[in-house]
């Protein structure tokens, strides 16, 4: 069970990182990561189906300069406490491309966002987007050796305070 420091807004936990990860599809990947969030008490049972449904309607695959990333998420009502589950796939899976329906992006890094307040959504998203655009960081994540290293990279680059 991930530890929780009540004084500090924490988004990343070692127990919520899957690396290595293998998935057959975007739905499979979302289900695996969503299960971690659910077991950790971060989200309600309605979270995973809500994310999958939203992903079909508004895809979140982003083709970046280095590695395809996806940021699946859903409404705050399905979330109990904020966290981001991170999956780093050995082999990419296809996600629909954001803003470009019908197009797929091979995604290797998945950040499944559990956001409890909508104003936090914007902050975390801005922070993530900036991180994705920082040269070398996504490659660093792919090459990280374990969950601890990945959490460390995210915490360094993704500050919302």
């Amino acid at each position, binding site marked *: 069970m991930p530890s929780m420091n009540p004084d500090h807004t924490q988004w990343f936990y070692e127990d919520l990182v899957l690396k290595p990860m293998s998935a057959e599809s975007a739905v499979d990947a979302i289900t695996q990561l969503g299960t971690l969030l659910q077991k950790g008490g971060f989200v309600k049972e309605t979270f995973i189906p809500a994310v999958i449904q*939203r992903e079909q*309607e*508004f895809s979140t695959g*982003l*083709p*970046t*300069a280095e590695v395809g990333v996806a940021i699946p*998420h859903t*409404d705050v009502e399905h979330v109990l406490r904020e966290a981001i589950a991170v999956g780093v796939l050995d082999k990419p899976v296809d996600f629909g*491309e*954001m*803003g*470009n*329906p019908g197009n797929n992006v091979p995604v290797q890094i998945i950040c499944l966002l559990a956001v409890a307040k*909508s104003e936090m*959504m*914007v902050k975390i*998203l*801005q922070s993530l*987007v900036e991180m*994705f*655009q920082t040269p070398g960081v996504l490659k660093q994540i792919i090459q990280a050796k374990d969950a601890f290293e990945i959490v460390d990279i995210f915490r360094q680059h993704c500050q919302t305070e």
Partner: protein
Amino acid sequence: MVSEKRVLVACGTAIATATVVAEKVKEIAKEAGIPVSVIQCKSAETRGRAMVFKPHVIVATTTVPQDLGVPVINGVPFLSGIGIDAVKAQILEVLRKEE
């Protein structure tokens, strides 16, 4: 005196990616010295909002109707980092147009 331009930013929920993109649009316009008024909406509300707000341009991170008589620009490059310069140029071109 440059007249104020209206930009409608649309995304799936109106609060997440639209906010990120809206701030980028404001930044670009400010740098270029063009006064803008930027509002956000859900993609499903685009048609109604566009009729009332009469934007000069729509910047979207999801699909929106293309038949509103307003140029629609894909705002996803602000999120992915790919093609940011091109999309900035596109937006500025529209904002600089005389009415």
